[in-house]
């Protein structure tokens, strides 16, 4: 196992190199000039050229890419073309926002999605099963931006309540106010993800429940609780965990909209703005962080298989 993890960690390096290079090259292929977008309609070609010179936009792709990595090794991700700050500083400020929202969203997804899906599978055909299926279909169908808008506007209209707006309060500074800011956007983000988890967990439980070893467990007189917890759950969890791992990336996509609705200045919102403005250093910085995070999650998911199902061995 140790060798496997080590090998996977080593594989992260070329993967990240490939991803960042692909993003860097593709962004430069995409039509649109950062200098024109930054300087607006009154700029002359001379103005744009000065701007390009200052931000190294005239460098060839290999030079720009290597120079960027040189900075990365020194902890400097470069100067943003748009944000008036250093990319490292900006990410330091914004990553915690997105990460906290994603962690909470995954928490809600697991806490609501997994038990609901398992119980629906175990009690197939019951009223609970129908209710859960109805809710999960609803959760998959309702767009998070619509739900988010309603969730923020309806309490405001009915009771004059708006969640704390105007900036993030760090968890360490005021946990209650921080959670007051984050629980609602995270929960909304988790609705769709939970719905997906419910459906997979339910079908996985149904699948496993038809296995020989489950039939054997019942035949040797084990109670339902023991069968479900000891035999069914562990085996049914592998596709669920795979899905949760994959959903982190999907949740990031949803976070872009939710950050806008709840005015949470996270990475998602900035990512979109950076793409529009062709803010290459910022895009590269965000991609570097996201790729590292997602690849690490992917690795953790793979490693977790071995702990959940002892039959799986990595060599």
């Amino acid at each position, binding site marked *: 196992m140790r060798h496997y993890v080590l090998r996977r960690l080593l594989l992260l390096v070329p993967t990240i190199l490939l991803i960042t290079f692909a993003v860097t090259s593709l962004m430069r292929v995409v039509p649109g000039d950062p200098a024109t977008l930054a300087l607006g309609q009154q700029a002359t070609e001379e*103005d744009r050229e000065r701007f390009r010179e200052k931000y190294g936009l005239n460098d060839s792709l290999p030079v720009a890419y290597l120079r960027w990595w040189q900075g990365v090794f020194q902890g400097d991700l470069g100067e943003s073309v748009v944000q008036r700050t250093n990319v490292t500083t900006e990410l330091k400020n914004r990553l915690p926002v997105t990460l906290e929202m994603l962690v909470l969203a995954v928490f809600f997804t697991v806490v609501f999605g997994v038990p609901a899906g398992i119980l629906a599978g175990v009690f197939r055909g019951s009223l609970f099963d129908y209710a859960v299926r109805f809710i999960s279909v609803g959760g998959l169908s309702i767009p998070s931006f619509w739900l988010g808008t309603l969730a923020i506007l309806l309490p405001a209209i009915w009771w004059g309540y708006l969640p704390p707006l105007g900036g993030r309060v760090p968890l360490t500074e005021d946990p209650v106010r921080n959670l007051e800011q984050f629980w609602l956007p995270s929960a909304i983000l988790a609705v769709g993800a939970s719905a997906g988890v419910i459906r997979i967990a339910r079908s996985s439980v149904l699948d496993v429940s038809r296995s020989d070893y489950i039939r054997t467990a019942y035949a040797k007189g084990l109670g339902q609780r023991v069968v479900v917890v000891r035999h069914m759950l562990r085996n049914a969890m592998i596709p669920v965990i795979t899905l949760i791992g994959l959903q982190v990336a999907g949740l990031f996509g949803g976070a872009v909209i939710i950050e806008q609705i709840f005015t949470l200045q996270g990475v998602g919102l900035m990512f979109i703005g950076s793409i529009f403005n062709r803010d290459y250093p910022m895009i590269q910085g965000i991609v570097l962080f996201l790729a590292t995070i997602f690849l690490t999650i992917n690795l953790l998911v793979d490693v977790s298989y071995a702990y959940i199902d002892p039959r799986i061995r990595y060599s």
Partner: protein
Amino acid sequence: MSQSYGYWLRKSRTAAISRRRFVGGAAIAGAGMATLGIVGCGDDDDEQSGGTPTPGGEDEAPQRGGTLRTGTFLDVLGIDPHIEVSIGLTTAAQMYTYLGAFNTRDNEFVPLLADSHEQASDLEFVFTLNKGFKHQNLPPVNGREVTADDVLYSLERFRDLPEAQNNSFYKAIVDKMQVIDDHTFKVTTKLPYAESLIELGGIQSAIVPHEAVEQFGNLSSRGVGAGPYILENYVKGERERLIRNPDYFHSDLPYLDASERITILDMSTLLQAYKNDQLDLNGALMNKLDYDGLPSNRVNYTLPALHYGSLGLNASVKPYSDPRVRQAIYLAVDRKQFVDKLGFGDGFPMGPLSAGLEYWALSEDDLAPYIGPDYNKAKELLSAAGYPNGFTMDVETSGGVQLYIDHANIMVSELNKVGIKAELKLSELGDYLSNKLFAGNFNATVFTHNPYETPKIPLGMYHKMGLGGGSWWHYENEAVSKKIDEQANEMDGERRRDLVKEAQRLILDDYAPMMNFYSPMGYGSHHPRLGGYDPTYRGFQLRRYTEFIKNT
């Protein structure tokens, strides 16, 4: 056509506003102004509906103390006055001082740092600075006096920063900037330039101390100035708080103890926060429906907005090089459709300048002959130009801006009525702006403008040199360009106005290849407890520093 024109007359008569107070003003990104509620319009007569409080509270005695709470839907990128062009400038305007601020409503230069200014000739502007005008008593300036050296340093910084926008005046028009002595500063222009004082008193021409730039690296997130407010707290894109500068030179100002602003990116949430009394001034962009839904116990007001949408045509290619085709397009588009569908019935006819620039814009009578619809005449013109069955028009625009699409869709359906088969070609916004619109790389395009408070930019767009980098429409009408130059160089206000109107007539007579659809209405609102706030000043209100909170 006359029927349509009658419609315009009716609309303008029933609109609950007076536009005669508006003359235009210094350039600031309109969205930023909108955030401060300055899209609205006050009233100076009895046209407003009964019972509605009047904006401004100008007749009330100002009261000291209180905190003004505002909100914005715009992402505040930074607060450097020489770099920002949007909402960040509104913060800078409170922190820094200026030689003066140009009041475009009343066409006057209001001195701030300057005690007076003298115009020795059309080319020379000499400013005598107030003695004892000090920077805020904070490091690294610690209350040092503001001198002419600070003015020179600041204006040169604005001119030379690679990130700075809208600084063409300092680069192309200004010949020399000189420190005569500690309290005298002289600017010499290369040629007479009508908007010199507007530029010198513009919101980006802030006076910043060199020590702050040297210590902070840039002024995007920190700053010390000599303005009436001190930046107490700034969290980029989230919130900021400014407190009164107790040592401000004009000691009676400001009245407020503090001014706070939060960012709420979602427009409907921002509007709701205002309605819930969490903000004193509405910062959301409203349409008529939003406006009608405002609480009646607020000061609600309307005025012609300064932004608008346009169709741009490439005058160097057929069929748009033929003025008859352009005239047919002008006449085929029923502007009432835009007013009804986009403005929910509110809006004004528009020539080259928006209705909000009333001092400069042509009257509705002047505009009448150029405004459609007159489908028969349009078809006749198309036949005469060799297109009896119309033609296919590829309209470039961006799917990234809903307002572009909304304007374009209406225009497409209008042109179809005379046989012009217009089809939208959508591009991503960054691609559209840099490779199509700004590059003049299209046959036809639909887009919207930022608000302009003076004729400089909206007229400049018809010049053969465009805004400096060439005409986006490849339009080279010497008479039009000459007239635009003449008005830009005319120092006499009244005479300039005549020239601006003559330029507009020339533009319309040639059915120039940028056709503006309509001038929308702007809507504003603030709480009655806010006094000293007069939205009729538009951008100048930012530097009046007269807001106060009434003790009720």
